[in-house]
């Protein structure tokens, strides 16, 4: 019986938007290795490049949903 997590990861990695993106590859690798620090680093770097802090992004999510991140193709 395959693990649900591995199954979800397989679906995630089959998405070409993630498979062909360096951020997506690293994020999938972090998920596979259960490396939360790597995932947090990627998230913090993306937020920092947008000029948002972690708290500001969380506040935006609570109020409006996903933060204002244009060109976010993963969940098109």
């Amino acid at each position, binding site marked *: 019986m395959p693990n649900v997590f591995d199954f979800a990861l397989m679906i995630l990695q*089959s998405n070409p938007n993630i498979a062909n993106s360096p951020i997506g590859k690293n994020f999938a690798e972090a998920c596979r290795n259960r490396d939360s620090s790597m995932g947090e680093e990627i998230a913090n770097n993306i937020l920092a490049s947008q*000029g948002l802090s972690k708290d500001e992004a969380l506040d935006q999510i609570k109020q409006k949903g996903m933060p204002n991140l244009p060109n976010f193709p993963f969940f098109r």
Partner: protein
Amino acid sequence: MNNIPTFNTTTNPNPYIGNHYASPTVPSFNYPASTLRSILPGRSVESSKDILPGEVPMDGGISVFPRSDGSAIYVKYRNGKGLIEDHIFVPAPEDYNEEILDVDQETMNIKDILNTVNDLSTKVDALSDIIASNASSNSRKYNNKSNKNHNQQNPKEGAEVNA
């Protein structure tokens, strides 16, 4: 009693004949047909400070921002850790010209190698001469010392021995 199961073909057809079930695999999702962009993202800017982080795509593709005065082109992209990396391309000077070789490049390389080998052999010969001359001078010194010791140990009759 024989409890042989019977199949009612009308209401319960054998699934292994006729209707074939697909084996459970990863379900197929309809992804966007192509992720290739036909247009290069970017725009003309006055300086690098005018470039917004949102203009750099998340999929790792490059975005190009030429300066309005044509003095440079800024190319930005995101690396695997989500950080934005940038490169600056500056136009080459007008007198820049790629070298056109009259001689075959391989021939030039072989000549360079031969010249280097000749130089090295000359230096090796010089070093060997120096070593040989040093060795001969050292051997003369050792011979003088050994004669002195021999004379001290076996002095000739009437000879003065200096300690």
